[in-house]
Structure formats: C-alpha cells, structure tokens
C-alpha cells in the first residue's frame, strides 16, 4: 500500500471520527448541542494548561503501549496482552518502589526497570505457554489480561496491602522523592512523557536503521525465509515478546511513579484501561512506528476531549469507547485491500487453481 493512500485513509478516519461524534451528539442531546459539544470537546483537549497537561498525561501510556504492540505486530505476532503487561509492570514497580530505601533517583530507576522486566516476563510467559500448548497467541493473551487483573489484585491484597487503606485494594505509597518530577507545577504533566517519546523514537531508529530491526521486519514478512537466513524461529518470537512486553510494563511503571504513586486495583487494568486505547493505535496502523506519535496524540486528544464533553454536556463515559470501536472499523475498512472474489460455480468443473486465493491473503 502506498503511503499516499494510507495518509488519505487516515485523513478519512479522522474526518469520519468527528462526523461520528457529531451524529452521536445530535442523537443523544439534540442538534443544537453539537456546537457546545464540540466547544467542550476542544476545551477538554487544550482549553487550559490543566487540560493540555491531562492530554499529554494520557498520551504517555498510549504511546508506549502502541509502540509495544507495533513491535510485536511487525514481527507477525498478534499479541493483545498489553493490558496484562501494563498492569503487571505497574504492580512490580509499586512493590519495588515502596519496599526500597535510598535516594529517590535510585529507587525510581530500580522501580522503572523492575516494572519493565515484569511486563516483559509476563509477555514471555504467555508466549511460551501459547507455543507449548499450541493455542493462538491472540486468544491466550486476551485471557491473560483478565488473569493478570485477578492475579495482581490477589497479590496486592495478600502480600502488599497498605494497612491504612481500608476500602481499596492498594499497595503502600511510594516515597515522595521517588515520584517522577512534575514538569509544569500544579498539573499532572510529569517526566514520563519525555521517556515515552525518547523510547518511541529509539525503537523506530533501531527498527529502521539496524540489522536487529531488519531481522524483526523480515521475520514478520516471511518467517520461513528468516529461518533460512539464520533466525532461530523457535526462540525469536519469544524474544520479541519479551522486548515488547518490557515497553508495556514500563508504561505501567511510569503511570505508577508519575500519576498514582502506588498501585491501586482498578486504576491500570480492567475493560476501561488506557492500554486498550494504545492497542487501538497499533491496530489502526499495522506497520507504523513513528506514526504512533501522531496516532497516540490523536487518541489521547479523543480521550480527554470526550471527557470534556462528558463533563460539560453530561454524556456517558461509554461514548469514548464506542467512538474508538467505530474508528477501528472505519479504519480497517478503509485500509483493507479490495480483491475480487471468485464465485462458486454450481454445475461447471472446479475453478482453476489460479482463481482461488488463499483465505489469509484476502483477510489481510
């Protein structure tokens, strides 16, 4: 597919996204509410310093998750377990951060690294299990998301519960000097966004310019060819999962260190997790890496914009999820290559072999 066509398709997606929001606003609140609705939408994205900071705060995990998912999709692995990796990473970062003593920067670095390692380890485990029992990774990683949610809740409650938090399942708070520094005072904008952007660009550079990245792309395009030229086809997918899981785990650790300052059940995971949004970006643009920057920004703006509409106009929070789902369908339809399909013939001899396309090719 040419870049031009892809750009046109994405422009269409953004335009249709706005149209969908407008239609839903008119449908839910009446035609006259479209104007104020959009005003609230843009107010929510960038109306004030606080809302800009809020958009960037959502941008950080979305970007990291989308980069993580892009890497595994690029290698031909359809891993949708980012939510689980994100949650597990967050829990481990909080566990290490609240247990360690020492200078803030040491604690913070150790917590971030542990979160990344935990996310990678979780992804590796799920991948290894999927390979061992021959269940599709996409199914197993979906189940692993719910499993991770239950598991971290169990671990938090039994091992790490803050004795002073009575009604919530949460770990102890991290020491204040280990929090990620806030960049603009009195907002939620923290250092994490810089880390996220640096990692996104670094991953792009590695994939684009190095042999490591070439191997990744090659394996995704044709694993058999990659095996012939020396990629270990058994271990390589697991290594990719380890790395992409580490990025998702790091996203969870950054959220814990930068926003929540503890791990609390329900803040990172669940069906409303921001990690699903990050996965959306990666699915919308299956081979993009640098493209994750604008895509994540767009989805973060969508999140805070719709939150603004919800606040000012009083629309349910389900609207954001609905728009996301519709956007994926629109984008997927716009990006699907049209191939003419052979028709079944009742009485004639079987269709010639050349006319019968492999189903995988048609569904791609």
């Amino acid at each position: 597919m040419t870049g031009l066509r892809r750009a046109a398709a994405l422009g269409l997606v953004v335009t249709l996204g706005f149209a969908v929001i407008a239609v839903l606003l008119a449908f839910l609140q009446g035609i006259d509410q479209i104007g104020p609705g959009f005003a609230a939408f843009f107010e929510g994205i960038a109306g004030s310093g606080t809302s800009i900071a809020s958009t960037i705060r959502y941008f950080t995990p979305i970007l990291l998750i989308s980069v993580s998912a892009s890497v595994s999709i690029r290698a031909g692995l359809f891993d949708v377990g980012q939510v689980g990796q994100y949650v597990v990473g967050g829990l481990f970062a909080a566990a290490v951060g609240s247990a360690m003593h020492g200078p803030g920067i040491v604690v913070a670095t150790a917590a971030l690294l542990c979160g990344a390692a935990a996310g990678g380890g979780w992804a590796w485990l799920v991948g290894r299990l999927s390979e061992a029992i021959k269940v599709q990774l996409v199914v197993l990683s979906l189940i692993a998301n719910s499993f991770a949610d239950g598991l971290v809740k169990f671990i938090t409650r039994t091992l790490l519960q803050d004795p002073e938090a009575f009604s919530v399942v949460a770990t102890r708070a991290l020491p204040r000097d280990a929090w990620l520094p806030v960049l603009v005072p009195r907002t939620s904008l923290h250092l994490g966004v810089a880390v996220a952007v640096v990692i996104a660009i670094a991953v792009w550079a590695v994939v684009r310019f190095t042999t490591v990245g070439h191997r990744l792309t090659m394996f995704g395009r044709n694993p058999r060819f990659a095996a012939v030229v020396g990629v270990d086809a058994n271990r390589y997918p697991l290594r990719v999962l380890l790395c992409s899981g580490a990025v998702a785990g790091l996203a969870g650790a950054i959220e814990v260190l930068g926003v929540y300052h503890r791990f609390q059940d329900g803040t990172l995971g669940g069906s409303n997790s921001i990690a699903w949004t990050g996965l959306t970006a990666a699915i919308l643009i299956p081979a993009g890496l640098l493209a994750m920057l604008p895509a994540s920004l767009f989805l973060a703006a969508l999140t805070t914009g719709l939150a603004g509409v919800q606040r000012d106009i009083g629309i349910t929070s389900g609207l954001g999820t609905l728009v996301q789902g519709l956007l994926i369908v629109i984008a997927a339809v716009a990006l699907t290559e049209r191939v003419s399909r052979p028709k079944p013939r009742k009485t004639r001899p079987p269709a010639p072999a050349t006319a019968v396309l492999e189903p995988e090719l048609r569904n791609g």
Partner: protein
Amino acid sequence: MEFWISTDLWYLTLQSTAALLFVSLGVYLPMRAGVLVLGAEGIMLFGCFGAIATELLTGAGSLAGLLGAVVASTLASALFAAVAISGRVNPIVTGIALNFIAAGGTAVLTAVLFSGSGGALIAPGLAPLPRLHVLGVDLIPWLGQVLSGQTLVLYLALLAVPLLTLWLNRTRGGLTTRVVGASPSVALGAGRSPSRTQWLALIVGGVFTGLGGSQLALASVAQFSPGMTSGRGFIALALVLIAASRPWLLLPLSIVFAYFDTLGFNLQNVGLPTELSGVLPYLAIVVMLTVPTIARRTRRGSGREADVDPSAPASNRLVP
C-alpha cells in the same frame, strides 16, 4: 468435603454453566466454519443488554427478554459477519472493535433509553426467567436438587450440545461447514459458497450467544451492569480451542470452569481470601489447556514435531 459437593454450590455452578456453554457453542460453530469470533464478549454483552432493555421497554416479562437477547446478539453477530466476511476486514481486528462498540454502545444506549448515568440497569419490575421443575428429576437424591429449579436455558443448552455434535458430524450442512473451515477453496470447488456458510454459522452462533446472554442477565437477579460478561466471551474462545474437533467436550469444560468460577465467590465460607476468585478460574483454564498437550506428549513418546494438532485452526500470524 460437604462444602465442595454442596447442592447450593452445584446449583449455582450449573446456572453459570448454561450461560458459558451457550456462548461457547456460539463461538464453536463459526470456528468450525473457519471464523474466530473474537467479538463474542461484545455479542454476549449486547445480548444481556437486549434482554433487560426489552423487558423494561415492553414490560412483557422474561420470555420477551429472552427473545430480545437473541435478537440483539444476532444483530451484533450479523454486524461482525458484514464487516469481517462481506467487508473482508481481518476478523481479529473486527472482533476487538466489536468488543469496544458493545462496551460503549450499551452504556450509551442505557443513557439514551433509560436516562441513566451509564450505570447498572435494575428495577423491581424486572422478572427473572421462570424456574422449571421437571417431573421425576426432583426425586433423584443429589442431582434432583441441583437440576430442578433451573431455567429453560440450561435445559436447552444441555440439549444443544448433542444436537450440534450430531449435526456437524452426520449431516450435509455440517459437512459443508467443516469443509469450509478446513479448506475454503475445496468448498468453493465443490460449488459451496464459503462466505454464505460462514454468514449462516455466525447468525446461528449469534442466536446461541444471545441465549447465553439472556441466562446471564435473567437467571438469578434480572439486571444489566456494564461489563457484566466479565471475560466470558474470551473464556469461551479458550474452551472452543481446547475442544477443537470434539464439540461434546464443551459441556464438561464449561462445567469445570463454571465450578471454579462459582467456587471463588464462596471461598469465604472456608476461610480463603475472596481475591482468589479472580485467579482460580484462570488457573483452571491454564491447567485445562495444558493437560491435552501433556497427555499427547506422553502418549506419543517424545518429539516436538509429533504433537502438531491438525484440528487447530489457523496460525498466530497476522498477515500484513
């Protein structure tokens, strides 16, 4: 010991088995036709919403709710088929999108139709499904207490498993479905339209999933809450993949999962933390997924090449 086989625990187990079993059947049939319905979670959620919304809007009682669930799920399944089969969009992507649309769409519809805040839908007028007492079953000692007083949906589910197994293995339509799943080009060559077969499988699958959704929403306390399917659609996918070419396996698999799921919520009674309820069912799934592989390995001796499962559908790969 009494706790583990208590009739209360097993009554609730069978109640939740019915919902899971129907969703599994709803995923199973399209799987045999070569479509993995990743959107089962969303289709089921639409079913739950359809059941409660129909009851609230028509006031016609629980059987109308059952019908509403089936209609809502079938429509959602048809949407999936229209995009994934007719529109030829990657079914995995379509499924994920459908789950988003269901989670958001039911919340928005709750707000529009019932001017709620997108929270749970529960009203005193909502009737649960009637409980059936089959003559004679009540007299069997333990089984009678577990089986009697269950809903129509459970009996339908128990009936649907052997019927679907027979249909798939012994009829022309079943054969066509299996051929389409195994090799669409062969079906095409034999004058069968793969997309038509897959459409039909998805529609019937939608009916099954809708019945499962009605059981979930209407079996005990009639209510709808956002995310009430809590991963059952994904669990069904796992069960379907374990069952592979043996549809009858779905029955024991659903019972085992439902047992551990129900157990989790009752663990307080034996002094274990309730948080285990989020862990136990998934551990059960992992064990169930692993056992066939281990069994296969020990049966065939060693060697990794030997245990390729020919019935496993498609591969992990997303073709770019």
